[in-house]
């Protein structure tokens, strides 16, 4: 079961930046496995965006955004609208966001935050690079999360420990921020590096703690 909640509207609007054209992508989700909201939630968010004057180039709801093949096919069908947009605003779990960024080659902003992933993980057959931080920073690295790829969880750029692109903590691994740099460079999003990212709100992981406690309580009942 993947549990999702909406990110704070003010955080989403801040990430969208003024004047940027948005293509809105939703996920129908796997029945009983996750709750990304599908068409209904997407329309609600669309209304909110339009009220604030955010230009929207189009919308699309997929059955399961965590399926890369499906993403590719669907984006291809909507490529004109996608190309007219500056950003993809994505209403799915972090897997959907990561699957999409792996295929779309566009800058993204997550609209939801993944707070728990217990059991089955949708249509994603790879490693799951998510720290379940209670927020979502996948936009900072266009699908590469700095919290996940940097052991220090630095949000405003790397430390000075990388050597030949390798992390100071584990020289077998790449420096997460250099990976992010390469991805942003490829996608023409290097300006994103300049944005100041405020200190994390750790109270956002409280729902996860509560959720785990309730699961634990259920288990002891049995």
């Amino acid at each position, binding site marked *: 079961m993947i549990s999702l909640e909406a990110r704070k509207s003010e955080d989403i609007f801040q990430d969208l930046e003024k004047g940027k054209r948005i293509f809105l992508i939703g996920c129908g989700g796997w029945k009983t496995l996750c709750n990304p909201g599908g068409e209904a939630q997407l329309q609600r968010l669309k209304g909110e965006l339009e009220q604030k004057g955010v230009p929207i180039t189009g919308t699309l709801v997929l059955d399961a955004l965590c399926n890369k093949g499906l993403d590719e096919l669907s984006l291809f069908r909507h490529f004109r609208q996608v190309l007219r947009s500056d950003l993809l605003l994505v209403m799915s779990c972090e897997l959907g966001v990561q699957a999409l960024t792996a295929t779309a080659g566009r800058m993204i902003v997550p609209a939801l935050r993944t707070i728990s992933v217990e059991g089955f993980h949708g249509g994603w057959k790879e490693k799951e690079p998510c720290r379940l931080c209670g927020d979502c920073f996948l936009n900072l690295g266009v699908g590469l999360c700095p919290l996940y790829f940097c052991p220090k969880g630095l949000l405003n750029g790397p430390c000075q420990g990388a050597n030949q*692109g390798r992390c100071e903590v584990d020289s077998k691994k790449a420096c997460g921020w250099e990976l992010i740099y390469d991805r942003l460079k490829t996608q023409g999003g290097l300006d994103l590096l300049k944005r100041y990212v405020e200190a994390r709100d750790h109270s956002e992981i409280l729902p996860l703690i509560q959720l785990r406690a309730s699961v634990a309580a259920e288990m002891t009942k049995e």
Partner: protein
Amino acid sequence: MTFQEILKERKFAITCEVSPPKGTEVSDLIGEIGDLQGRVDALNVTDGKSSVMAMTPLALSHLLQERGFEPILNMSCRDRNRLALQADLLGAAALGIRNVLVVTGDYASMGDHPQTKPVFDLDSVQLLQAIQSLQNGQDLGKNPLHGRPTFFAGATVSPIPNTEAALELQLVKMEKKIDGGAKFFQTQPVFDPRAFEHFMKRAGKFGIPILASVLPLKSASMARFLNKNIPGISVPEALIEEIGSASDRVKASIGISVRIIQELKGLCQGIHLIPAGWERKMPAILEAARL
């Protein structure tokens, strides 16, 4: 003249690093740096350098200040969350400590307590923002302060990283640190002034004082160790040969440091000495470099 005034008046500044002891005994350390009195403008007091547990730099900064030195309190993001960092900043201000150097901090697994929980609640840019907020009379929770501190905050930069991405990222982060309130920078040790010049061509546009670090090269094996293990440090092969073949290694080492300092003099606004055990030899280096 204070460290801040020296930098403000665009004079050449000299700082030196001291590391607090592992234990309560500070008299040895105070003895070793005695000759630096009046020769350096300020002393950086390291904060759990290389993740090795040692006395809090806040206490040593205070002790040094009592003895007439001007401290620069290093603050690492590794060991304290935002409550503890802000609390120590208020404490430092109450003790009259004005200079603060903000660093991310080495990862805990590199030190002598690898089992510990690394914190990194704030990163260096966020900590600079926190300092600014405290100076404006408000903590990070937006609560008012009873008495606000005044700091002269600085940060660090790695001038010669070994990939294009790392250099670009250093420059972007440097700009963020300046926006966050950093008023000066100290660098990783420089052994190749030409490479440093290349960095200064990019970083000079920020118009902010940069102090290049100078670390005495004690032996060829030390140089090889640095090249292999310490990121952002590249000792040119010619220097390794020079120190390796010298009959008087101490003399050769001092000679190399002096040469580097003289080349750096025209490139940036100061130097930061990292004695690494050679505290007593620092005055001779400064003397020979006519500083």
